[in-house]
């Protein structure tokens, strides 16, 4: 008799997920699905609101990557009012750099949260450790000095966000065509030099290297397990600049294959011409894919692993991150890296890259200049805009249309977690195969639950973002037989 295994809820991720594993009569895994059972809402909710409210309201989808949503929306509004990139009018230097600074501060803060709070406990205590220990609270008890450094690092990131956006969460900085304030010299000096309770930028750079060291130590001791864990194929996508290197704020989309051949390159304004979205009745989260390649071959991976796979190098002024990136590239001899747990290596590299970019920006006097907004020309209003940024979890797209009166009539958000939907499902399938395939008793063990969670967590998915949910959601794992009968289920 075939069986189905269900994990619900999946813990230490944002939102409510459920995993169902289908077994056949020969005890082989025939299917594994990550169900996302939250409901959508924000795209509808925003309709009828004035266009300028969109970046302010839609950032409230998320308490972690709100800056990305805010900036993505702001870029869409730049388009809508007829300024900036879509009109080939360069954004003024100060607002662009202010936006980038806020973006890097958020990336630092978000990656530090996901990596040190949720992922490092898995590495330090092992996947088989009890969930009660394999948690940040276990980390607090085991290594308070590390936690102090992490707290200091995240706090610095939040202060960086607050300095740019006015508040540490859901602040407002960007307006159509620019920003509403520059960075004062005093705020800049505080971020660089620190003060009582705030570490200095040099300490940020020092602490930002902890993550790579922790991953490398863990990898050194567990190389075979780490490398074999859910090695799943996918194309890799991110925004790149004209040199073909990742640009977190603006660029064109590049998609590369395993050999890093460019499969597709596109202006993100043409996204709908190249991508389609499949739906399934078992998940509210869609499955985007490249139309030209179809759903199976055309699904992409986004986020830290995809970005380090796509980019050849970082900016010349990031020597530490460039050295780390080179080591990462050397590990797979120049091929794209499909090892799911190496996403955490990539994330640690990006923490360092963010810190170095922040240092560059904070030493740029443009941040204190007064030209903040690019005024649109008469009749420049287009009524439609698309913005794309590289959010911490990957490529994020906002697309709005507004009426002549300026009220939103259409909104479409394609978030990183949605882009990663297929590759996350492949990861769950791979883990289920490893733990259950060929075993007579397909019971849900702690080891299986932990492994599935670790696999999903590598993507740092935000299911609330992905479904634009408006409610509070809590993972569930279930095993069903060939007839759909539930034979095991566990909830965390």
């Amino acid at each position, binding site marked *: 008799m075939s069986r189905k295994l269900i994990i619900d809820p999946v813990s230490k991720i*944002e939102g409510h997920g459920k995993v169902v594993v289908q077994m056949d009569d020969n005890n082989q895994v025939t299917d594994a699905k990550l169900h996302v059972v939250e409901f959508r809402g924000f795209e509808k909710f925003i309709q009828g609101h004035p266009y300028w409210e969109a970046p302010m309201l839609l950032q409230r989808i998320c*308490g972690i990557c709100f800056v990305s949503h805010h900036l993505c929306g702001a870029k869409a509004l730049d388009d809508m009012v007829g300024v900036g990139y879509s009109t080939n009018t360069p954004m003024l230097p100060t607002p662009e750099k202010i936006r980038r600074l806020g973006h890097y501060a958020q990336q630092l803060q978000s990656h530090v949260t996901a990596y040190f709070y949720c992922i490092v406990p898995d590495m330090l205590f092992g996947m088989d450790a009890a969930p009660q220990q394999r948690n940040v*609270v276990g980390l*607090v008890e085991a290594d308070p000095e590390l*936690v102090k450094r992490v*707290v200091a690092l995240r*706090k610095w990131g939040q202060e960086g966000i607050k300095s740019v956006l006015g508040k540490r969460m*859901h602040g407002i900085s960007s307006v159509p065509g620019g920003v509403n304030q520059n960075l004062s010299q005093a705020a800049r000096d505080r971020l660089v030099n620190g003060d009582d309770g705030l570490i200095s930028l040099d300490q940020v750079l020092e602490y930002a290297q902890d993550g790579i060291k922790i991953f490398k130590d863990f990898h050194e001791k567990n190389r075979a397990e780490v490398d074999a864990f859910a090695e799943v194929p996918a194309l890799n996508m991110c925004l790149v600049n004209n040199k073909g290197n990742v640009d977190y704020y603006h660029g064109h989309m590049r998609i590369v294959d395993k050999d890093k051949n460019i499969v597709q390159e596109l202006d993100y304004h043409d996204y709908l011409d190249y991508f389609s979205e499949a739906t399934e009745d078992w998940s509210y989260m869609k499955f985007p894919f490249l139309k030209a390649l179809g759903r199976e071959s055309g699904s992409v991976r986004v986020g830290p692993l995809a970005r380090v796979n796509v980019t050849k190098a970082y900016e010349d002024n990031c020597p530490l991150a460039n050295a780390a990136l080179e080591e990462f590239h050397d590990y797979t001899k120049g091929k794209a890296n499909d090892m799911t747990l190496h996403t955490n290596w990539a994330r640690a590299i990006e923490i360092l890259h963010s810190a170095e970019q922040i240092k560059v920006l904070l030493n740029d006097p443009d941040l204190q200049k007064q030209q903040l907004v690019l005024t649109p020309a008469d009749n420049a209003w287009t009524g439609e805009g698309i913005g794309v940024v590289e959010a911490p979890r990957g490529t994020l797209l906002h697309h709005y249309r507004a009426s002549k009166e300026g009220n939103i009539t259409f909104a479409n958000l394609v978030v990183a977690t949605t882009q990663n939907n297929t590759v996350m499902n492949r990861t769950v399938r791979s883990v289920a195969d490893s733990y259950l395939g060929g075993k007579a008793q397909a019971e849900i063990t702690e080891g299986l639950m932990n492994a599935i969670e670790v696999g999903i967590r590598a993507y740092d998915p935000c299911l609330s973002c992905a479904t634009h949910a*408006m409610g*509070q959601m809590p993972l569930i794992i279930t095993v069903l037989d060939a007839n759909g009968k539930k034979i095991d289920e566990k909830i965390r």
Partner: protein
Amino acid sequence: MITLADYNTESSLIYGIGNVGRQDDGLGWAFIDWLEEQSICPKADIMRHYQLHLEDADLISYKKQVLFVDATKAPDVETFQLEKMKAKMDFSFSSHAISIPSIMATCRQCFDKVPNVQLLTIKGYEWELQEGLTSMAKQNLDIATEFFRQHSIFNKSGITYEKA
């Protein structure tokens, strides 16, 4: 007896937790609004945030006493409740939120100290994406603030209360 006047020091923190964009989740901030409107505890640090984060362990490590104010759905709370909190690691952590006892335990573990912490919870009913308290939540806020009015001498000894 503890008085709100005890919080009128620079070593005190009064911290409203909530989200005014989600109906009664705004109760914590509404209480902070009331404190500010009444000019109560002007010397204390006043904060409003959506939820707690681990770095709040660092924040409270600089304080001698902390009053957290939050909305609650707890069935055993009719209107409001005040309780003294104890440091304890629990497993409530996600990257979006962490409990007050865990924050206190983290503070003690990392910084070798922990302030006196109290939690004021006020009963709420609706958490939908909408601004404004429900009328019942507003009543509970009024009951809480009125309780403090009756048990206090403003501008002298502050507001006195006992455990509800």
